[in-house]
């Protein structure tokens, strides 16, 4: 798994490269937009982590250029620009995810894993199964061990997201972003309270437990520890 990190701040770059290498990724580093574009077009990467503000060629233009050249490698934008619009412009330019600095490394790692699992543009799955838990998107039915489980609409979307990322750590921010479409952090424990209800419905009385809390990182839906 090869990752290209385009980041001009040496300390952040070292933090990213070191952390990702520790996790077993092979990481290449570029310190400006032009080098980043050159590397991204000449070598094969599974994921590009690109800072928005770069010398010589800014991250947004870099990604637009890549997409115009039909290079569909997944892109994770890193930015200090937490503006309301920045997220939207970043995603519109062809970014696949958007992470605002400062961030916890666990958050970055979870997103890297989520992005690198599938190539871009896979066809939509409509049926998910983890152990004896099944979710059918078309019929909007959830079953555990053959028993149908009634879920609230938000709980359904939460479970759908967890099942799409089964086996991966999903952070609270990822859930807020994707399930609630909140691009800010409400102080009330919205995620926790929904998750505990979902857990009660999915796991209570069944074995094994499927929804796990990963300390300091987030949640994970998987069959075994």
């Amino acid at each position: 798994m090869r990752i290209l990190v385009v980041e001009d701040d040496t300390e952040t770059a070292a933090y990213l490269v070191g952390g990702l290498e520790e996790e077993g990724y092979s990481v290449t580093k570029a310190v400006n937009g032009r080098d980043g574009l050159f590397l991204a077009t000449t070598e094969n990467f599974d994921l590009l982590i690109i800072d928005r503000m770069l010398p010589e060629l800014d991250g947004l233009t870099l990604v637009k250029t890549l997409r115009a050249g039909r290079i569909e490698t997944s892109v994770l934008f890193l930015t200090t620009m937490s503006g309301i619009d920045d997220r939207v412009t970043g995603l519109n330019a062809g970014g696949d995810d958007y992470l605002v600095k400062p961030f916890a490394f666990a958050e970055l790692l979870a997103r890297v894993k989520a992005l690198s699992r599938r190539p871009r543009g896979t066809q939509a799955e409509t049926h998910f199964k983890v152990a004896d838990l099944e979710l059918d998107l078309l019929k909007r039915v959830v079953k555990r061990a053959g028993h149908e489980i009634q879920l609230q609409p938000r709980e359904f979307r939460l479970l759908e997201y967890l099942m799409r990322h089964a086996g991966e750590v999903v952070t609270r921010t990822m859930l807020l972003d994707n399930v609630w479409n909140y691009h800010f952090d409400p102080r009330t424990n919205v995620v926790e309270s929904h998750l505990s209800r979902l857990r009660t419905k999915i796991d209570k009385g069944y074995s094994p437990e499927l929804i796990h809390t990963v300390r300091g990182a987030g949640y994970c839906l998987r069959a075994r520890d």
Partner: protein
Amino acid sequence: MPATKLLRTSSFRLTLAYAGVFVLCVLVLFGVSYVFVTDYATQDETDEIAVEFDDIQNEAALAGEAKLPQIIDSHIRLRKDVRAVYLLLDAQGNKITGNLDAMPPVIGPTLMSLDVDGRFRTMRGHGYKLDNGDYLFIGQDTSTLNEMTDLIVRAFGVGLVATLMLALLGGALISRSVLGRIESVGKTTHAIVEGDLSQRVPLRGSGDEFDELAKGVNAMLDRIEDLMRSMRQVSNDVAHDLRTPLTRLRQRLERARLRANDPEELQDALANSITQVDSILETFGALLRIAQIEAGGRASPPAAVNVSRLLAGIVEDFAPAAEDHGQRIVAEIDKDLTLSADRELLTQMVVNLVDNAIRHSPPGTEISIEGKLMEDAFELAVSDTGPGIPPHERENVLRPFYRLEASRTTEGSGLGLSLVAAIAKRHHAKLSLLDNAPGLRVAVVFPLAA
């Protein structure tokens, strides 16, 4: 005001142009009057000569042809004052009577210079060939007409000079008053540039364009002063409010260094420090966001948002959390309400309000979310039956970092309501904190026409 400056002002130049137009008007008026008056006077003289001739002929017809010289003599005497001249010649050109010595016998209307009483005068006259072959000339001195035209020229000349002087004087006065008012705006802005933000452009109270301009400038200055004050306030608050957590962080790190040989304690201290840093960063994030919303530069234009669905979604999202706190969320939302707004900001506003209600109210509280269509506005309200905010504190809590004594211990940046206020302002909505008796009711009224 120095003369050169006066000459450079556009108002003075405008006045000069006006003066020019006035002068032109006077000249045209003069020309027209001159032509009409001379025309009229000429015609009058011609008519009078014709009437005189008719009179003489009529009198001669009554008294007999032979009396003609006497008739003429009497006419000469009668019309001495208008300086009329008469000359009667027989067929051979010998003078019979008249107050002219001699002249060529011109037939028809004529204008000639004649020697009368030793002076050359311009005469308008008419020569007639009488039936018996005699020649009669009746003439009139044109000096009356000349005097009249002289008078007209003089009158207009004086008028022209007066007009010009008045126009220039008026222009100078007007441009001085205009300049004076513009200069007062200039003086004010200059003082402000120098740093005195409390300066205002004086109003005259006449409600004219200059007053309107001054009002506009003053309103702008009010806004700037407001912004400056809040900026100063915020930077003070930031400095003050961040010192506390940073001090705590420093203490924690210092303690950690002293106990560096206990790995577990060190781990805990580091984890705590990271949490502390995160909360500081979060404060900065919130400040940035407020600044961004207040600055207003947002690319995506507001779109029609289905508020009913948005509010219902938030109720659904927060109901479990409220339940976990032993609270209850009730909703009273009109169906299919749409509002031209920024969806994300609107969501964040309601979420912040609900957040506040949940976190600052004890178990057993009922939180109500309302969306109501009013006559020309839309009211969105979040109320709770919690402890509420005392009336004198309601303004304060909208200020960044302001926290009530009772909520000092509750986690939070103290920026939630500032953000709500910024979002409301952004949508031209009126935010009010009311007594829910008991509890707090936060109402945001959006104008629908906007």
